[in-house]
Each structure stands twice: as C-alpha cells, then as structure tokens.
C-alpha cells in the first residue's frame, strides 16, 4: 500500500508538488495523469526516495519514506522518464551490473535476467550495446531493470513512451501479471494505454491532485474521449 500525506516539494513558487495526499491499495495499479509540468515526475521521484520532500509524510508497505529509506529502496522499482544506461554496456551487462549492486546472487541473477529478457522478447538482443538500441528497446530495458529485484512497489515515469504497439502490448500483459503482487504507480500523459488496467486514476495539475477517479469511471470517460488532455479537462469541470 502506498500512503501519501501532505507531501510537498517546491522548486520555485509555482513549480513542484504541493500538499499531495492519496492512497493506493496493495497490489493495485494507479495512474497519475496530467499535462507537462503537473508534478507527476517530481511525485514519483520523491516516492522513489531520490528526492527529499520539503514537508509531509509517506509510507509504502508500512515503511516510512523518511525513516526507512534503505529498506524502502529494496522494495521499490523505479523507471525514470529518461532511461539511465551506460552506452558502452550491452543489455545483459547493464542488467547484470544493476542486479549485482542490488545484491542479487549471481546464479539467481542470471536466471532472472534470462527470464525477464524472454518475457520482454529481448533475449536475442541481450548482447547488443545500449548505444545501439532504439528508444523503445531502451525503455523496455529500463522496465526490466526496475523489476529485476522483484519489487513490491513499482514507480513508472512515462513507461509507454517510445514503445511500439507490440512492445506496449507485451508490457501491458506483464503489468497485468505484476499487478497481482505489486503496487504500481504510473505517470503518463496518455490514459488510453493503461486505463483498462487502472484501479485508480489521479489527475494532477499545477503540482496538486485536482481529481481522482476509480478505474471503471476512467474507462467510461476514455470511451468518449480520445486522449488524456480530454480527460484532464473532464477532471477540471
């Protein structure tokens, strides 16, 4: 379960997140929707423990954000908007390195990497350099690294960007599977890709949550609207 109480992180007077409060049930998927600059990425960064909030409190799976940083890092999988990578590493090498520093045992790590790459249909590209990967493939590698250590909370910042139809379909299938054991929070501009998986949708604007919808309500709105901006307008009405 993700519980956020009055979290604020200010970069300037009108940039950042302000007094965010929401709850996401265990083993469910929530979407953070909003236009650019709404504060979605900042919210995920704060929850990932990479950015310290100015005020407020949050907890994930009962672990407090400020006091249990190390324990939280073990249960969090985070995919930033720009996928971090070493261009001189192959897909296998980068996953192996990230697994190593996450403390996964070598034998187990090898098995997990093979399994994940197979699931994402990347096994045949495992020895390809990251610098030679397309945006979509790099995005997929980013998702692979985030689930390598079997996190209990998955924070995904624009995970759909760059994925082609097949990759997105595959990713959604995996998300659906992960949802059974993981709390997932996805920030995105486009609701349509993930809406039918969502249990909850949070609309952000100007660093604040302006509305929340249940997954079912969101899906109803989606059917009448083509894109997120339509949805966010609905939220403002």
């Amino acid at each position, binding site marked *: 379960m993700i519980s956020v109480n009055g979290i604020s992180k200010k970069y300037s007077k009108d940039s950042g997140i302000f007094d965010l409060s929401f709850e996401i049930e265990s083993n469910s998927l929530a979407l953070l929707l909003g236009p650019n600059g709404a504060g979605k990425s900042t919210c995920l960064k704060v929850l990932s423990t*990479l950015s310290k909030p100015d005020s407020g409190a949050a907890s994930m799976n009962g672990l407090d954000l400020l006091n249990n940083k190390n324990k939280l890092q073990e249960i969090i999988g985070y995919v930033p908007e*720009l996928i971090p990578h070493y261009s001189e590493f192959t897909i296998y090498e980068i996953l192996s390195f990230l697994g*190593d520093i996450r403390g996964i045992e070598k034998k187990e790590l090898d098995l997990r990497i093979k399994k994940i790459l197979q699931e994402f249909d990347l096994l045949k590209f495992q020895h390809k350099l990251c610098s030679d990967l397309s945006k979509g493939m790099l995005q997929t590698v980013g998702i692979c690294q985030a689930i390598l250590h079997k996190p209990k909370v998955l924070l995904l910042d624009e995970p759909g960007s760059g994925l082609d139809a097949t990759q997105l379909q595959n990713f959604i299938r995996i998300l659906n599977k992960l949802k059974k054991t993981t709390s997932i929070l996805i920030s995105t501009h486009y609701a349509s890709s993930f809406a039918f998986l969502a249990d909850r949708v949070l609309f952000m604007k100007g660093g604040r949550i302006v509305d929340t919808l249940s997954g079912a309500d969101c899906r109803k709105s989606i059917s009448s609207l083509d894109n997120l901006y339509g949805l966010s307008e609905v939220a403002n009405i």
Partner: protein
Amino acid sequence: MSSVKSLVLKDLFSYKVTPVYYFFVAAIFCISAFIFFNLFGSFNAQVVEYLNLPVRDSRYAPNLNYSVVSSYFNALLFVILLFTPFITMKSFAGEKNSGMLSMLLLSKLSNFQIVLAKFISVLIFLLLILFLSSILPFSLIFFSDIEIGPVVTGFVGVLIASMSFSGIGILCSACSKNEFFAAITSLFALFFFYIIHAPAENMDGALGSVLKAVSPLWQVKDFLRGVVGFAPLVFFISLFLLTFSLTFVFFQKRNCDV
C-alpha cells in the same frame, strides 16, 4: 562489499571498453618513453663529455640517478597531472550524465561505498599507468649500476602524488554534472597546485613556507632524491583524505536531489 567490487569492476570495464582510455594509456606511455630516452640521450652525451675531459673529477661525474631517474619521475608527475583530470572526469559527472547515479543511489550501496568504489577504480587505473611508465626507469636496474633506492622512492613519490591528484579530480567530478567541465576545473586546480612551486622556491618567510607546504612538487622532491620523508608522506595522505572526505560530504549533500 561485493556491491563495491561490482562498481569498481564496472568502472574498470568502462575504461577497458572506451577507446579514449586506451589513447590515454598509450599517450602517457609514449610521452614518458620520449622523455626517458631524451634524458638518457643527454646523460650519454654528458658521459662522453666527461670521459673526454683531460682531468676528471669524480665529484662532477654524471649521475644516472640524478640525471635520468629523478628528472624522469619529475616529468612523469607533470604528465600524470595533465592526464588525471581526463581519467577522473567520468567518476561522478559521467554517472549523473547517464542518469545511472539514481540507480546507484537506489542500490544496496551506501554513499560512502559509492565514493570508495570511485576512488578505488581510479587508483587501480592510475597504478596500471604508473607501472607501465615505470618499466623504463626500473629496467635500468638490470642494465646499469644504478642505486635502486631512488628508483623505488621516486616511483612511490609519483604514486602518492598521483593519488592526491586523482582525489582533486574526483572531487571536481563530484561537484559537476558535465564531464568536460569537471576535467577543466580539476586541470586548473591541479595546475594551480603545480605552479605554486615556482614562487615558493624564491620566497622566504611565512608565505614562502606556506607555499612550500602546499606545493605537491616541493613535497615530492625528497622522494625523487631517494629520501622518504615523514612530512611529505603526511602531506600527500592528508591531501588524499581531505579530497576523499570533501567528495563524500559533497556527494552526500548533493544526492538528496539527483
């Protein structure tokens, strides 16, 4: 500690697969070999000149240790100083640039371990370069009646001075997001330390003493002459520890918001 080992190996692997580092190693080796053979050539000329003297005074006989080894290590120190910023620039700035710093921070590695791993990998790489560059002076042991002491202390002197240089380089990398900016900043910082030596030599009084005390070139002098002084040893170890601590403090402070 296995996570530290992984990060060290990753950095060393990056050196291994990045062509520019091969260039650095080759350039340092070629420049140092050029310097060595130049010094050796001029030593030979001095010997011929000395042997042609009608009256020879052994006090003025050319000395291989002084003419070649000491001068070589002195020059090598300058070469290392020029290349160190380009070896250390990627340490932290590279991680920030690639976005991988956030992954390191989310790993099992503590901030101290990340800084430690960065220092270890740079030091291993520098050690490799120093070993390669020291083959030539050490080879003199087998082909001449050179004193071994100054060769060994010269190597140790350059090694500990390089350690502190790398500390300054890594600190600059930790302070910057841009690799190139990190390299230029540390080059300026190291060059500043290097040229402090010039006024220090001609200055008396308190200011002269202070300049001498902070000049790595002044401090390393004894080592190059074959003397292991306690004060220079303390100076270089302190400088190294200071840069390590500052890197750690800066990294700790900065990484709150990557």
